[in-house]
């Protein structure tokens, strides 16, 4: 029998970590992540989850403690958002470089200044080059499903990279949706037990981790992370397929998800909860006899460029919606990453929803209209801006 709970995205994330039977949690509260770490504390306090919960004094220490715990051989989870993620920045590089399979939930939120607790994706985008795998959820069910898969991806022997599962602050973290909670045994059977094979801190076999890598060695370690990211493309797909088979829920091919692309000349690309709004608009327009498509990016790092190219081969106009901005270039990250692969199409960049600015169906229709009729190739347009 299905166990469906009507819960927030942060609760879904906490449920997922509980189902994966994490050994160590280290976390620090920050809006809008807080309710997930409160939920986990509750699970530990009630004996529902047998884990060590380190109530650290900062996010910097949260991720540092996760690195220490992961290196010792524990399955490790943390959660953060925005300023907290920015404070972790330095150690995110270390976690990836040292190949620690940590799983983190990040509640996407704008960065200061001005201080703003609402949603955009500048926080995780700013961690793009740290070596972490980055996945983006569209809804609360996908949040739970991605976190379960994230442990299996991170701990895969050929990947061994930390995974950040992103969900839009408030839009998902504070909105309740029905979420199917799978049986714990089924999940444990799926993710297995974490047992580090190559490097670990155990007195019976002393190893040195985090050594000084001089110019003779540094480049190779960076290249190894790149190779692991390449391998992760197939591993993510494979784990997604196995998950779909076992739990009956699928999300495109695990890397990207296409929605009505095959019928459309104009396609929108974005990540996260905005995909839900866009799907609604596409359905409405379809009812009027107009065909538009959506390409949802689930895996932003590694970025599946081949799959994206293939999915868009029939498209003429591509609108790329970014909830982030590279100031000084006037382009969002998705656009700068994807547009170079789509030179034969009109590609237009839309900066949307910064700091929680509402993105309504009318805005999506405005974007479609603009892309098709007025926009010049590689143009950038800020949507809903007060001028």
């Amino acid at each position, binding site marked *: 029998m299905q166990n469906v709970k009507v819960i927030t995205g942060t609760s879904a994330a906490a449920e997922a970590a509980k189902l994966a039977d994490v*050994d*160590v949690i*280290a976390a620090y509260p920050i809006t809008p992540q807080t309710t997930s770490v409160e939920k986990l504390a509750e699970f530990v306090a009630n004996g529902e989850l*047998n*884990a*060590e919960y*380190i*109530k*650290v*004094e*900062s996010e*910097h*220490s*949260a991720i*540092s*403690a*996760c*690195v*220490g*715990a*992961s*290196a*010792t*051989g*524990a399955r*490790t989870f943390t959660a953060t958002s925005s300023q907290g993620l920015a404070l972790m920045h*330095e*150690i995110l590089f*270390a976690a990836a470089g*040292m190949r620690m399979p940590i799983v983190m939930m990040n509640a996407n939120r704008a960065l200061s200044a001005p201080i703003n607790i609402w949603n955009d994706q500048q926080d995780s985008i700013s961690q793009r080059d740290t070596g972490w795998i980055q996945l983006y959820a569209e809804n609360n069910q996908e949040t739970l499903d991605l976190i379960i898969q994230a442990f299996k991806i991170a701990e895969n022997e050929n990947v061994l990279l930390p995974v950040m599962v992103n969900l839009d602050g408030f839009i998902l973290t504070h909105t309740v949706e029905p979420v199917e909670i799978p049986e714990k045994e089924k999940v444990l059977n799926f993710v297995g037990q974490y047992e580090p094979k190559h490097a*670990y*801190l*155990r*007195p019976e*076999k*002393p*190893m*040195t*981790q*985090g*050594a*000084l*890598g*001089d110019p003779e*060695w540094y480049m190779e370690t960076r290249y190894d992370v790149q190779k692991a990211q390449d391998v992760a493309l197939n591993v993510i797909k494979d784990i997604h397929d196995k998950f779909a088979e076992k739990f009956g829920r699928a999300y495109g091919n695990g890397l990207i998800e296409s929605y009505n692309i095959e019928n459309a000349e104009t396609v929108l690309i974005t990540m996260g909860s905005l995909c839900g709004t866009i799907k609604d608009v596409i359905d409405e327009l379809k009812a009027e006899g107009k065909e538009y498509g959506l390409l949802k990016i689930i895996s932003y790092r590694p970025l599946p460029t081949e799959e994206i190219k293939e999915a868009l081969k029939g498209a003429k106009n591509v609108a790329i919606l970014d909830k982030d901005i590279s100031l000084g270039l006037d382009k969002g990250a998705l656009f700068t990453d994807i547009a170079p692969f789509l030179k034969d199409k009109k590609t237009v960049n839309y900066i949307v929803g910064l700091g929680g600015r509402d993105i309504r169906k009318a805005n999506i229709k405005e974007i479609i209209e603009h892309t098709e009729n007025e926009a010049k190739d590689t143009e950038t347009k800020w949507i809903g801006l007060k001028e």
Partner: protein
Amino acid sequence: MARQFPREELFAPGHRGCAGCGAAIVARLTLKAAGKNTIVANATGCLEVMTTPYPETAWRVPWMHVAFENAAAVASGIEAAVKSLKRKRGLYEGEKVNVIAFGGDGGTADIGFQALSGAMERGHDMVYIMYDNEAYMNTGVQRSGSTPYMASTTTSPAGSVIRGENRPKKNMPMIMAAHGIPYVATASISYPEDFMNKVKKACEIDGPAFIQILQPCTTGWGYPAAKTVELGRLAVKAGIWPLYEIENGEYRVTYKPSKRISIEEYLKTQKRYRHLTEEDIEEMQNLINHKCQEMGI
């Protein structure tokens, strides 16, 4: 006495420390006292750089370095993982695994202070060893919060207007004691038995322990490499570095010099103090006299 020290070397020779490096003595003695069943977290600094240039390592115990300011947080994670794996998977059954963090004075009293305070306050069962050479030696002798009054460093140089470092040394042992942790101690590389006893005790005690060990630095302090141990002894004998422990709130002096030497005998051996005038030395002596009276030395 020397025969009582374990012969086994868990800190391998052949590392890249300077001749006369006091940090190497700290690491070697610590591991002799703690033994094999130890996991080490090391902050960025001299000790880390000189012992682990890939693919070499001087550590014969599991060892990890992540960053400059987070050794205490990394050690927190290691300790939590050991506990969790013990409880959930039966690893380390009936064993005591020592979790030891090493940080220099910069990595401990300055940039790593928050992580250290958090780890101590949370009560992790770990030993934090601050190897104190009284400046940022790894980057070339810049002042830290642990640099003593009037010492000349590259960022507190003695000039015609300013007489070197203008602030007193941060009192880390007392700050740690204020956390209410079960064990705090000071130590010196020149009193190895005293130090090793303290490490042993710190490992045995359940909960956080903090040991600050003064470690003369030949390049940073400016003295001949052969004199490291002698300098450490002079600091204790002059009363500038008293040896004590605070066990469950009980303060106890662990070594009391039979007769204190003058501070001048200690200061004159080092280039970092060579700018001091007679008045400066007198001022310093008065300060030390006052401190020693307070500490019962």
